[in-house]
């Protein structure tokens, strides 16, 4: 009896050792092949990054980039804890976050890496693509002050459209997101009441009594599709890929513009000197500018502790903000305008290696 117990235990420990070796080997192998750079953060960037870094790896077999789409908040934390080589966030670091990151690893460089727009989508029986809306009207809808589709303010913008007397169901993102940030940034820029009552944020206190929250772009899309009279907002790429019914928005030049790759790019190009301190690009001038747009940001330490790795990070990011931007269009993301690409490259040039 005793003997067999010992024998079995011995067998077990051998098995455990074997498993451990196998596991160790499988982890070690790719590390031998190439340096693995890691990044974490914004889920908005994920589709672009996964394709761009794959492409990059095709031409540079000494580097692989592993990006974890854990959300901007998590990205900032991981970056500050120095567990990743770069972080990605839909909003640049605020003063408090910057100070903490600086204390951990010195000066932080932040570059715009991806450009996105927000489409206002709706479901109105009998009304197809291209309902016209203005900033103040959308703000009043989201404030709950305009509660019916045939409200005089909406009718005035759409004299040719027969608007139903349906109640409006306001749909917003329930999860914290960069999309909500850009959207509330826009509403704050066009409505003083929104600015004082609600403000700007990735999550805010949505004031309308007739509002419901959906999780993610798909949550809003599902809600809007299934509910007659609903209005919501989704990321541009999502709206285009899913052929959603979106509104034309009045921009600051009083022109009505559809959310497209070109109109968002035009808005971004009107502000070439974008910086982490002055990053908002909503409601930009220009007849072709779509009014709801924003950047996603990547942060790196100016002086990484491992200079060799730092050099590789710099190369990957330089490629992503320039050549890599051609990938963006194929994913319905907006490629960075040429002048912003140059600005991003200039900031990366400040890395001390």
């Amino acid at each position, binding site marked *: 009896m005793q003997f067999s117990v010992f024998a079995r235990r011995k067998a077990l420990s051998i098995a455990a050792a074997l498993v451990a070796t196998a596991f160790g080997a499988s982890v070690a192998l790719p590390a031998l092949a190439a340096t693995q750079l890691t990044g974490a953060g914004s889920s908005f960037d994920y589709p672009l990054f996964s394709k761009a870094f794959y492409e990059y790896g095709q031409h540079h077999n000494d580097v692989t980039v592993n990006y974890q789409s854990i959300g901007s908040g998590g990205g900032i934390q991981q970056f500050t804890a120095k567990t990743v080589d770069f972080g990605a966030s839909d909003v640049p670091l605020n003063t408090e976050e910057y100070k903490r990151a600086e204390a951990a690893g010195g000066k932080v460089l932040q570059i715009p890496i991806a450009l996105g727009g927000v489409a206002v989508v709706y479901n109105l029986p009998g009304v197809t693509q291209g309902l016209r809306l203005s900033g103040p009207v959308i703000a009043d809808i989201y404030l709950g002050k305009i509660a019916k589709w045939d409200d005089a303010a909406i009718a005035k913008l759409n004299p040719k459209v027969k608007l139903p007397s349906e109640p409006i169901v306001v749909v917003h993102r329930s999860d914290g997101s960069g999309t909500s940030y850009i959207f509330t940034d826009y509403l704050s820029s066009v409505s003083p009441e929104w600015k004082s009552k609600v403000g700007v944020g990735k999550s805010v*206190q949505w004031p309308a009594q007739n509002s*419901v929250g959906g999780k993610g772009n798909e949550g809003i899309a599902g809600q809007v599709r299934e509910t007659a009279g609903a209005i919501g907002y989704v990321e541009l790429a999502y709206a285009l890929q899913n052929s959603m019914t979106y509104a034309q928005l009045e921009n600051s030049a009083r022109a009505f513009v559809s959310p497209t790759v070109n109109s968002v790019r035009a808005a971004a190009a009107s502000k070439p000197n974008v910086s982490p301190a002055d990053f908002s690009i909503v409601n930009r001038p220009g007849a072709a500018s779509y009014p709801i747009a924003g950047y996603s940001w990547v942060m790196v330490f100016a002086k990484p502790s491992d200079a060799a790795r730092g050099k590789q990070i710099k190369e990957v990011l330089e490629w992503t903000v320039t050549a890599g931007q051609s990938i963006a269009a194929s994913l319905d993301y907006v490629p960075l305008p040429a002048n912003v690409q140059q600005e991003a490259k200039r900031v990366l040039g400040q890395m001390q290696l």
Partner: protein
Amino acid sequence: MGEPAFRPRYRVGDRLFAWALNLSTWFYVALIVGLFTVLLAGSWLAIKSFGLHFLVASSWDPVTGHFGALPFIFGTIVSSVIAIAIAAVVGIAAAAYLAEFAPPLIARPLAFLIELLAAVPSVVYGLWGLFVLAPVMRSAIGPAIQSKLGWLPLFSGPIYGVGMLTASLILALMIVPTVAAISRDFIEGVAVDQREAMLALGATTWETVRRAVLPAARPGIFGACVLALGRALGETIATTMVIGNRPAISASLFAPGYTLASVIANEFTEATTQVYISTLIGLGLLLFVISIVVNAAARILMHTVLRNVEER
């Protein structure tokens, strides 16, 4: 015959076995203590900033940093209580049917199917709720209820499809298998002579089940319901998809609500300020405490009910 034959004899193996059992129990005690400590430490900043007022405040404004947990506590408890009320009735009825009435040829595949439902991932329930149940709730179920019972505040107001009632129904659906599967095992476990005694008195099958079998299986059935309630309280993704995610306390079940687990899942990934993160961890602590309190209350209730039954 002699004393030595009955003396327990400990061997090394026995001792090791006893230790292993001991350890696996204490491991869970340690886990709970550890969880509690980590949650308390993580939410300390929020507790210090808001104090007990946090529990009764109902505004949730990440922009200004005003946080209150009341709408989430309300949503969590209401959705779970409605869910368990529905699931208990349906689940126990299903269990009684499977164990006592259904011919074995039907009972076995049916029981298997129900147990299979318990293994369906909750995101699948959530998607089904969002794309199938919510539209039906908005166009058919909701208006039907409102036309009859619309005068009750409970069923008043606009129907969005998503909302407290839809979330409760999805939760009920998710926990019925738990109630049914465990209850069935306990009903089948009731001694045969109890049934025979009842039948011998001239009782019908229905009377036997109601008077002899179900009362005997009551502790087990109660346990099944407590387990199911625990699952409902902590359910995250399915609730998030169909509850409407508005931190408001409304009398109407058609109105959107919000639960503790949902708000954590929604906002944790993008929360960046220290107080905000700490507050969300505080909600986790609250959910933990609520689960323990509800479990304890259920147990006390069970003991009281059982004692009353025995005294009768």
